[in-house]
């Protein structure tokens, strides 16, 4: 953990539960034992945190500024900048955006496209939509068979199917793009 000490403060864009925060991470130093201490702040929130890595992908956090609350959080990267966290038995998806990545992400967002990927590997049994179809939130777009079960991949947004990128009968890996849904812009 010594690598963290001695650096200056770092700012990171962190998105959890749909909300973005500009987080300042400032190393305070090594403490007794294996931990490293940091000050983390965003908006009007400031925390003192002691962090240690337990095993591949798991962090132990002790928030000394909040009653020494102790938590183990599993962390792994599912794609560049995309994190899967395990907090108190729950699975949380987070996104950490740096200068370069944020441009790509923003570009994709502004274009109004939702890229629908298969969340699991398997066989693409059926594609339920065709380009030009209007779809609702939650509507089935395709069926992927994995682990003996047929699983429907649903649309994350209402919009119009702009592309179908995979063919029925083909094998798919987790993260493969199946369908692109174009949505009207809000905001």
């Amino acid at each position: 953990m010594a690598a963290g000490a001695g650096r200056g403060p770092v700012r990171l864009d962190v998105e959890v539960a749909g909300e973005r925060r500009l987080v300042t991470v400032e190393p305070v130093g090594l403490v007794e034992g294996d931990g490293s201490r940091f000050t983390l702040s965003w908006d009007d929130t400031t925390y003192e945190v002691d962090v240690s890595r337990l095993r591949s992908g798991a962090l132990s956090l002790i928030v000394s500024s909040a009653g020494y609350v102790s938590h183990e959080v599993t962390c792994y990267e599912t794609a560049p900048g995309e994190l899967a966290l395990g907090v108190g038995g729950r699975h949380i998806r987070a996104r950490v955006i740096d200068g370069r990545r944020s441009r790509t992400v923003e570009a994709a967002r502004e274009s109004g496209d939702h890229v629908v990927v298969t969340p699991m590997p398997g066989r693409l049994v059926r594609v339920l939509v065709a380009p030009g179809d209007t779809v609702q939130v939650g509507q089935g777009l395709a069926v992927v068979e994995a682990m003996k079960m047929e699983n429907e991949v649903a649309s994350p947004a209402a919009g119009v199917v702009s592309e179908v990128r995979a063919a029925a009968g083909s094998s798919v890996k987790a993260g493969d793009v199946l369908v692109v849904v174009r949505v009207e812009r809000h905001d």
Partner: protein
Amino acid sequence: MKILVANRGEIAVRVLRACREMGVPSVAVYSACDRTAPHVGQADAAVAIGPSVAAESYLSIERILEAARETGATAIHPGYGFLAENAAFARACQAAGLVFIGPDAGVIETMGGKTAARRAAIDAGVPVVPGTETLVDTLSDDELCARADEVGYPLFIKAVAGGGGRGMRRIVDTAAVVAGVQAARSEAAAAFGESAVYFERLLAGARHVEVQVLGDTHGTVVPFVERECSIQRRHQKVIEESPSVAVTPEVRAALAEAAVALSAAVDYTSAGTLEFLLDADGHFFFLEMNTRLQVEHPVTEMVTGVDLVQWQIRIARGEPLTVDRRQALTPVGHALECRVYAEDPDTGFLPAPGRITALRDPSGPGVRNDSGVEAGFEVPVFYDSMISKVVAWAPDRAGAIARMRRALTEYTVGGITTAIPALLWVLGHEAFVSGRFDTTFLDRVLAERQGHSFSDLPAEETDLAVMAAALFAYFSGADTPGRGVDGPGPTPWRRAARLDGVRR
């Protein structure tokens, strides 16, 4: 006796542990993707039986018998699933001179077809859910409707060879009968290679209770205290327990009597389970029999102290059953089982196979974890996605629920998504805690959530997630220009993360 376990995952480990404890030599079989699965190392010997696709490995009678021949195995334990209820497999074992650890092939056949089992139950004086025999193909549409009207609505059209909710249709009036039968027949044909269906009344508000039995080759049958398995998602059991809060001592005795009557009538040997529906008035109706070890057998073991798998092996050796019937019917404390699947409750429980990067299994007082995975293992895409069964015992049901919540909270699985958040939610649901639920409970309350995420966090935990994400990124990727980083090149964490991709 030398036992080949024709299965994988937690149930293979379970059976192999029993072999070890009894000093019986054991053989594991494995498909290509299971080379590093825990059951391979739990056995005295292990044989590769083919590619990952089950049809060419765990479902291949020929390859399993060949593995038995190559290793000198003298008996086969089929576990559950795969070939466990395949009468042809049981016969093939017998023909090859191997002991099949389960009931006779003939009994598997009799009790395997749902309408045949219903007939056997009726003959044994056991009440069944109102319904019909197999609907022969020659029935006219009018005749079909007449039969359905007789049974009454709502009713289920069910596949005779069914299981797991396939080939099943819920029908509420005469108008839907003909189309429903057609749809169910073609679905059943696709799923089971057999199109036969029948009608069965849908009992509103019923609970699923089942009776474990053991039968030996000397005519003794012992029934056990019931298990309740009403917590189901789409007809698949999720949480099981013993005893049932809905079963009185009188109903327990009656269930046991019915189970023994039917088991004795078919000369049942080995472990088996009779499933019943229990209505609000305490009446029960036979549904079907599972002629094998059940996934949820541990809850029975926890409240009776009887090792069901060891008894299967003893019975197969011809030993007389000496389990005390009173002990088997008198639960000590309360046990719950939660099936932990690699699936994502936030995407409608889609399977989520993948490599387990970090793992801490629950343990400690009153907790048993029957697991089929280990850190570093890749949960395959080819089979059922259950990674383990967590069982919690306590002197009473409230204590067992509290202990299960503790166990699931300390259960850490990194790298893949599991349904643990949904299990914790169910365990905290008022209706579950108070014991007021039926078989439709889980699907109903899940529907009421309207896809609401299981990952919604209280404010403090959101902050915790933000901190963890920021620190993880700080350590693993803080080398982007313009972010105030003074270190050149990758940090130790990033190097470590990269390495994870390289090593096997």
